[in-house]
């Protein structure tokens, strides 16, 4: 029975585990960056005065938000990369890394878009009307009045999305790129599914997610617009 509380596999595989979590971090950061860019483009489309762009943005968000991430990543890895032979790099792990990043950020961007859009919607109409009334141009009112308030109110939702993204990188296991959850699966196969291994990996993810949560919570409170 003492083998059930055996922490030695964690020590033995320590470098592999660290490499796994390093992959998780790289996936998270790169996808977060791309998702933020794509999400901003999408939200610009969804609030634009052009009906065609609005419809296209809505279409994208509704499709991606209602498809399971597992399916999105499988489509990237098995479909676009393996079946259609669109490779992003000659090196196989690098190729799968980029496809995983693209899948994650395409999926996350739809949530970023919705968060940003609800941020813009929290700015009262009176603010923009006041800005126009004192003679600010469109860009000025956007830059000086609307966007600063909108950005502050989306800090907390964006933090939640970043945390969710960190946890979602585990699904990259279906897309053939090795990160922390695949390392855990491998260790379960090698050493058995013991509690210490599970707790070790759970702690690893909590080290990534909890400080992010506290940081964004603190930032959101600090930057909150008092209305």
């Amino acid at each position, binding site marked *: 029975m003492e083998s059930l509380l055996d922490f030695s596999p964690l020590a033995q595989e320590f470098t592999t585990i660290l490499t796994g979590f390093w992959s998780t971090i790289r996936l998270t950061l790169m996808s977060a960056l791309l998702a933020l860019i794509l999400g901003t483009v999408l939200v610009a489309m969804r609030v634009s005065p052009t009906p065609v762009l609005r419809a296209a943005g809505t279409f994208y968000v509704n499709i991606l938000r209602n498809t399971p991430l597992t399916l999105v990543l499988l489509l990237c890895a098995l479909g676009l990369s393996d079946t259609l032979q669109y490779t992003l790099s000659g090196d196989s792990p690098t190729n799968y890394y980029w496809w995983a990043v693209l899948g994650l950020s395409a999926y996350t961007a739809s949530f970023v878009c919705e968060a940003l859009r609800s941020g813009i919607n929290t700015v009262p109409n009176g603010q923009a009307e006041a800005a126009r009334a004192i003679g600010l141009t469109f860009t000025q009112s956007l830059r000086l009045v609307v966007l600063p308030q909108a950005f502050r109110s989306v800090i907390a939702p964006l933090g939640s999305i970043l945390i969710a993204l960190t946890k979602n990188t585990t699904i990259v296991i279906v897309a053939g790129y090795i990160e922390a959850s695949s390392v855990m699966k491998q260790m379960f196969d090698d050493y058995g*599914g013991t509690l210490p291994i599970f707790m070790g990996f759970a702690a690893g993810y909590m080290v990534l997610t909890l400080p992010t949560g506290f940081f964004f919570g603190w930032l959101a409170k600090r930057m909150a617009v008092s209305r």
Partner: protein
Amino acid sequence: MSTTSVLFDAPGPRARLRNNILTLVSAVVLLAIAYVVIKGLADKGQFEGKLWQPFLEAQVWTGQIIPGIVATLEAAVVSAVLALVFGVVFGLGRLSDHAWIRVPAGAVVEFFRAIPLLLLIFFAQAGPATISGYTVSVPAFAAVVIGLTLYNGSVLAEVFRAGILSVPRGQSEAGYSLGLRKGGVMRLILLPQATTAMMPAIVSQMVVLLKDTALGWVIAYEELLNYGLKQIPSNFGNLIPSAIVISLVYIAINLALSYVANRLERRSRRSSKTTATVVGAPTAVGVGGGAT
């Protein structure tokens, strides 16, 4: 939209002209993108009839897609019910006056919300087998349900807590002053009002839960994704068409659920039966919903 938007003034003649030009340009760009995508697929021969043919056959639907949908819904419904129970127990636990209930309940909820769902599913499958010395084996269905229950239950616990807290304090004070006890205030005053306020958030969490059943793929639980993206393509060699059809099925189911959520939200906004403010949906990002 442009008249009510915070961003734009009502357009004048010049702005209307500019908007029309923008519409034209963006339509051309979007059509160009669509053309490139479709041409890319066509060049790789993805529109050949024999790849799409299987989806016109009744056998593929009755033998694979419908059983897949049933298995997905089974896992989703069972975990949804269990997650609601888990959520009520731990949500109320976190509101308890006794620290020895409140603190452990909070720790459990925060723990399951902070770690990825996939880790839970893996451990639910491998853990019991190892700990029992390989005498117990957890079926894939149970592993999926356990993982989904613990994770979504914890998210729902937070929703419940927020729902109860959103009822103004005067309501429970009024209840106490009528001579109700804690249980009575909770049962007769707080819960009925909070339920209305929480409904939209609960339903949108159900969409997340339904999407997350797709994780069954990883541990070979035979649900919609497994049938549709493993079995059909291995029979017909049509991965891309299958992926498109399967995602349409998921989108249809989820849009139907979201529609219900929106209807509920609108109804509870109008409702005068509750004093509670509607609880915002947790940021629903697939396997991750909003941890704080």
